[in-house]
């Protein structure tokens, strides 16, 4: 093509032929050749979503071992902009969701509010960034959010290889199954060759294949990217079972099923899903603050400090309560916070038990029992190291 173009001969208007100065300028810089047969390029078409890409790019970012752009003291940045940027989910009932006015609420959201109250003395100074399962870690690594409070399961891979620190556990979940009653199943082990609907991008998908591999049972996972699509498919009969975290199953059965009585939740929990907030590595002070605000909320429940009785409790004679609420020792100084950091957090959102009841417990649409999420001295797993 280049050769043909170079060999082109162009009609020229030699300057001398023109004669006078007013003649048109010689056209010497004509670029193209007479064209060949007119040819149309392919009609434009933008390609569809290729799902593995985001994951691949996130991986690339990690492989390059690039330093986080916003390394440094997160606390200073939060104070400077007078706002905590909190990564939350794009809508998980009871954990983080926006109402019709765009106000956020839920257990994970209350953790953000408690930290904002402890650090900025105002639980409303939080900007919520809704993140989906695939983008959540990248957003934290790149510094888009200060904190990821988005029902994220603590696993070794995530803790050790993603440049993150899991801080503390705010909810112990497990994965279960929902099946139609008419299949007459009583155990997950009877799901041989069953098609099971599952949402992608979470630990759920991997737990499913791990569990049945261990059991030596063959199943066919049917994977959906969107929650709505996955349950729609299940309730329209595409799969024989639906699997997700137990915290969501009861609600899906009671609210999303066309007839709740036609479905039942199998007794097995096939995984451990400890959920908790995550911070970036490289900022130990911030890591400590997030961790200890959560411990303070749990400890407040243990000592019976509630949103309502907070002011009376400040005058309590119990040294542990005095330390917690800052009425005797200054426990905040060690964290780089004010003396009443824990009292502010409890005042904003209540103690852990109150947060639980309001968002996922008996006072919420989810109506989940405390179960393993009760305090350690009431038969549960919620145990905070002492504040002293």
């Amino acid at each position: 093509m280049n050769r043909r173009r170079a060999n082109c001969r162009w009609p020229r208007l030699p300057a001398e032929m023109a004669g006078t100065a007013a003649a048109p300028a010689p056209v010497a810089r004509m670029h193209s050749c007479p064209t060949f047969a007119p040819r149309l390029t392919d009609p434009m078409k933008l390609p569809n979503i290729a799902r593995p890409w985001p994951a691949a790019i996130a991986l690339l970012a990690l492989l390059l071992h690039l330093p986080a752009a916003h390394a440094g003291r997160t606390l200073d940045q939060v104070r400077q902009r007078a706002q905590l940027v909190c990564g939350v989910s794009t809508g998980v009932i009871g954990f983080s969701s926006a109402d019709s006015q765009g106000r956020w609420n839920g257990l994970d959201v209350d953790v953000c509010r408690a930290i904002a109250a402890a650090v900025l003395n105002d639980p409303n100074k939080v900007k919520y960034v809704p993140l989906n399962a695939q983008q959540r870690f990248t957003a934290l690594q790149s510094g888009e959010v200060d904190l990821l409070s988005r029902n994220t399961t603590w696993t070794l891979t995530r803790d050790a290889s993603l440049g993150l620190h899991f801080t503390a556990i705010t909810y112990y979940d497990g994965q279960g199954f929902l099946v139609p009653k008419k299949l007459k199943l009583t155990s997950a082990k009877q799901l041989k060759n069953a098609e099971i609907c599952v949402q992608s991008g979470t630990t759920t998908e991997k737990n499913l294949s791990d569990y049945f591999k261990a059991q030596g049972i063959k199943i066919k996972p049917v994977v959906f990217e969107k929650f709505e699509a996955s349950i729609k498919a299940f309730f329209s009969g595409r799969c024989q079972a639906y699997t997700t975290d137990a915290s969501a199953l009861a609600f899906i059965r009671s609210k999303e099923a066309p007839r709740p009585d036609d479905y039942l939740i199998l007794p097995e929990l096939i995984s451990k899903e400890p959920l908790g907030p995550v911070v970036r590595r490289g900022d130990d002070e911030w890591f400590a603050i997030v961790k200890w605000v959560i411990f303070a909320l749990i400890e407040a429940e243990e000592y019976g400090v509630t949103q309502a009785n907070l002011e009376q409790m400040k005058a309590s004679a119990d040294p542990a309560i005095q330390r917690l609420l800052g009425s005797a020792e200054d426990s905040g100084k060690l964290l780089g916070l004010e003396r009443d950091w824990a009292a502010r957090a409890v005042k904003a959102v209540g103690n852990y038990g109150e947060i639980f009841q309001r968002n996922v417990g008996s006072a919420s649409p989810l109506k989940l029992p405390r179960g393993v999420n009760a305090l350690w001295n009431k038969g549960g797993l919620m145990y905070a190291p002492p504040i002293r």
Partner: protein
Amino acid sequence: MNQVVATQAWLRRNLFSNVFSGLTTLLLLAAALRWLPGLIDWMLLQAVFKADAGACQAVNHAGACWGVVAEKYRFILFGRYPHTEQWRPLLATGLLLLVIVASGMRLLHRRFLLAAWALVLPAFFILMGGGYLGLSPVGSDQWGGLPLTLLLATTGMLLAFPLAILVALGRQSRLPLLRGLCMLYVELVRGVPLISVLFLASFLFPIILPPGVSIDVLLRVQAGIVLFAAAYLSETIRGGLQAVPGGQHDAAAALGLSHWQAMRWIILPQALRAVIPSMMNSAVSVFKDTSLVTVVSLYELTGSLSLALAGDAEWRSFYLEGYLFIGLIYWTGCYAMSRFSRSLEPGSGISRPLA
């Protein structure tokens, strides 16, 4: 009597002109009789129009729950924009739509139109972003819904178009370096999906930037969309350029026009006119592809709908009605664009040259 005959004649001419057409008519009629009553029943008769979750759940999907739109329309249309300030995106969207419609229907003289765009675009950003005239500042990551969709699509096309022309011309250049660069750009950008361009722009870019330097996420994403759309559009335009017969170049040269004059007055008008349908195709694509920016935490129309419903226990199960609502918005936009494209095709003042 005459009327009956006329009707019969009309029927025969339009619906039963031959066996195939007659069968199609009957088939469509049967389908309408079979499905239409149920559809009307679901969409209107049994539907709940009030924003009452209890009533919607009582109907249990036997009728549409338009109440979900009544309850959530502000969230769907404006996304995460602060609730009390939502008159600002409303006004901004209204202004932008007005000037788009005025441009499309050629209601204004060209000179006024340019002025209108020059006024409305800054006004849009001032209204949305705030920080001036006593408006409280709202970060661009909190813009959402319809204004964001419109902004990304409109500025995407407005900026991609000139860039695409330059790249298309660059690919025909005689300078090997320029030609190579343009080709590299097109092949590189065309070789990756838009979603990965957006991911690069949103997440990888801030990691690469030196610490302390940050570029607004909306700007990064908009740049990504412009670069992406321009790569495709430039190939469309190059196709148009190749369709212009060489005689046109010669004729322009014979008239003594310079290269750029020839391009401006002879070649480009014909080339662009030849590819109007294709270009409108890209415009429609860009409009709909804006829904992909959800993956980088910008919640445009589609994103804000799922954000509005996903976490709401009472309304979550009525997302079908929500999707129908935004489907209608997208369809209106795309249909308007295709009408506009058709209005451009005949009588644009240049007769088609012989190939």
